[in-house]
């Protein structure tokens, strides 16, 4: 659902009203299902919240009390089964609905509802994008293989501040040489990549890898597909990837943990 919410966030621009995605972590064939309360919250948020953004409406915590609307590009499923599996990463959620009182509370400076706005739809995605997770024993041939199977852009999910080991440099260079842009996010989930701190980071920058700030890896992949749907030019791809479209990159990293 967070891949879908990211895709919709990029595809639906200049929204006049909120768009809510909703689901359930417990199936609706059991009395304890969160389906009904999530749906109630999603409908209330879509109908009444002073918002104009794509959101994911799910439980705030393990109680049937608050339904949170997470920002479409900043949400990630962080648990396999809990009702509050979806978390806002490095950003506050959009709004919160109180199941008991029916009240809605705005939690973020997201765009407000504005009926005079005209929706722009940019629905083209190109799936020749890959998200590669670097890990001990990672074979750099995976990068080469991705390129040879038609990749038009790559996201490397590096360690820590955004690193892959030296033995990957050649494969990265080869990809760039074939006009396949390479981007860096981090597998730590929380935080921002910074490739100026350590040697490998600086090396990768010099080679031509583009760091994606605090963009969530999954969002970065979806955005890359969306950008590829609009252009094939490596320069243009790089430019668009770093241009904030739907809150996917933030300037300030908030102090908060996941909400």
């Amino acid at each position, binding site marked *: 659902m967070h891949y879908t919410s990211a895709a919709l966030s990029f595809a639906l621009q200049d929204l006049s009203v909120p768009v809510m995605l909703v689901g359930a972590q417990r199936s609706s064939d059991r009395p304890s*299902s969160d389906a009904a309360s999530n749906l109630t919250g999603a409908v209330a948020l879509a109908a009444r919240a002073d918002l104009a953004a794509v959101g994911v409406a799910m439980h705030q915590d*393990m109680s049937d009390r608050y339904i949170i609307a997470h920002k479409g590009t900043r949400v990630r499923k962080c648990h396999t089964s809990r009702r509050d599996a979806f978390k806002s990463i490095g950003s506050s959620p959009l709004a919160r609905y109180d199941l008991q009182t029916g009240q809605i509370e705005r939690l973020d400076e997201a765009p407000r509802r504005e009926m005079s706005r005209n929706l722009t739809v940019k629905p083209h995605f190109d799936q020749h994008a890959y998200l590669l997770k670097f890990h001990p024993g990672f074979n750099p041939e995976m990068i080469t293989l991705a390129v040879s199977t038609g990749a038009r852009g790559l996201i490397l999910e590096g360690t820590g501040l955004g690193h892959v080991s030296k033995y990957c440099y050649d494969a990265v260079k080869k990809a760039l040489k074939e006009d396949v842009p390479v981007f860096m996010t981090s597998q730590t989930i929380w935080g921002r990549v910074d490739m100026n701190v350590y040697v490998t980071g600086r090396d990768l920058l010099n080679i031509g890898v583009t760091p994606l700030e605090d963009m969530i890896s999954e969002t970065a992949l979806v955005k890359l597909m969306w950008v590829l749907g609009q252009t094939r030019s490596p320069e243009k791809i790089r430019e668009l990837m770093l241009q904030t479209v739907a809150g996917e990159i933030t300037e300030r990293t908030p102090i908060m943990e996941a909400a």
Partner: protein
Amino acid sequence: MFCYCPTILSTKPPTLTIERRLRPTQSELGQIDPAVLFEFHKGRTIRYEADPETTDLVELDEEPPHRLNEEAIDIALTITALFNARPMDEIHVMRKVVIDGSNTTGFQRTAIISLNGKLDVDGKEIPIQQITLEEDSGRKTGESKNSVTFRLDRLGVPLVEISTGADINNPEEAGKVAFEIGKMLRATRSVKRGLGSIRQDLNVSIKNGALIEIKGVQELELVAKVIELEVQRQTILLQIRGELRTRSLKLTDFTDSFVDLKEQLSSSQSKIIQSAVKNGGVVLGTRLAGFKGLLKRELMPGIRLGTELAKRAVFWGRVGGIFHSDELPGYGIIESEVEAIYRRLECGPSDAFVLVADSKENVLDGLRAVVERAKEALAGVPEETRTANPDGTTQYMRPRPGPARMYPETDVPPEQISPERIKRVADNLPRMPEEVAKELGSKYDVGPKLAGELVNSDYLATFEHIVTSTKGVSPSFVATVLTGSLRNLEREKIPIENVTDSHLREIFNLVGEEKTAKESVIDIIKWVSSNPNAPARDALGKLNLEMLTQEKLSEIISKILESNRSFVNENRAKALGKMMNLVMAEVRGRANPKLVTELLRIRLEQFKG
């Protein structure tokens, strides 16, 4: 049953509280069970209290169930073998919808393990229809009109449900069967101890009566009494039916139109009516044609037909209760007001009335439930699920659930029971109580009566553990404490369920190591029962039960002899008995009586007046 949480109850405050709502779900055939709908109509918020020690995500309904617990299956198969029942080839887990909040999922998982067993009770063969594994529910720790609170430590503990056939013919026999089943279960040594670890549900029906399911009979001694009272209740309900028929009452005599009685009670002193009116509520009443005098008819001690009507109003209408004409004037309603109501409701000489004061919605629901129950009196005994009170009487709990509340648990795959598994269980069956008692006698020199009591108590495994691991305490003493003494403490309402096996081991160790005397054991147990999170040795300091050193003991003896100088001088060695009493009164629990006697004897000999 579907996770690996320990099967213990927590004595500590919860660390996590969450809030939930449950809603009815449809069965596979699209039906909604009446009992389930009934709970939903209460509209209550459910609060769960949990702690990480006894509860995990499965029990919080935040993670799918794991596979059925293997040990639970083995124990159920052992019980299956003990009752000669036929095990299923495959265990299929089902969901039984229960939305009173006692299960976080909104259903109780249950699985049939075996069918068609039997049990011999005094030479009569009692059929054991079915043996099932079920998960226990949460413990209710609080309740109000709008919410109910459950502690989740007990949730998910595997239960074995053993259902007998409808072949028990009288209350005493039911008691005996329950006792025999309990004995067999204890033989597995897998039964938790304490009130509620063995619970009896009773199904009672008499000729022309109805099947009544009574839940929550926790004490064996109550079984016969509950049945007797239920038979009495059904008999009287049938008499009432007869009387209603002689009064030629028909279903069409009942009315669903309720009359506003605010005017008749405008200056009433009844607090309930005053507060209902003040809070914007209503006072509505209805005539019950032909019921005069019947509402006060006692069905069981303290429970009248009027009580049955009231319980329905309380449950369906969320009201505090009802007023009925058989108990009026009273409760702040005076004679002239009663007369005015009779007139307003156009009651004839054999008619009764019921009135309810609360919010309009609650009053309407409540009165409808009252009329419904009154109609059922015309048919005799309504089918119900009732709950047992501690005095053996019962009260309305909810309608009898239908088949619509069962459907398959799709998250747990069926489990095959292999012939090898059945053989392994059969090869490792526990020994029967009589056999074990005999062995206790020869192995530990415990008398036959005491051994018998021990085998039928919840403490057999504890006993064996203590006597094999503790030196310096006699097995008979341990057995006496674990049976008689603990039972006495339980009767005194001492919360001995808080005393764990490790507490008991520690206490007997303290005696064995001569850190305290045998006489202190009961006091230490009492102290531990109210301080369950502290080690037993802390009791010694708190209660002043630490063993006296020989020096200190000699000092006390000297002091006592000194203050009884003339008596000792007169009686010399013969003073021993009296002096012994005086000394023991001061040092009981802190000195070995043998040592006291010995020291006293020497000192008396040396004593120089």
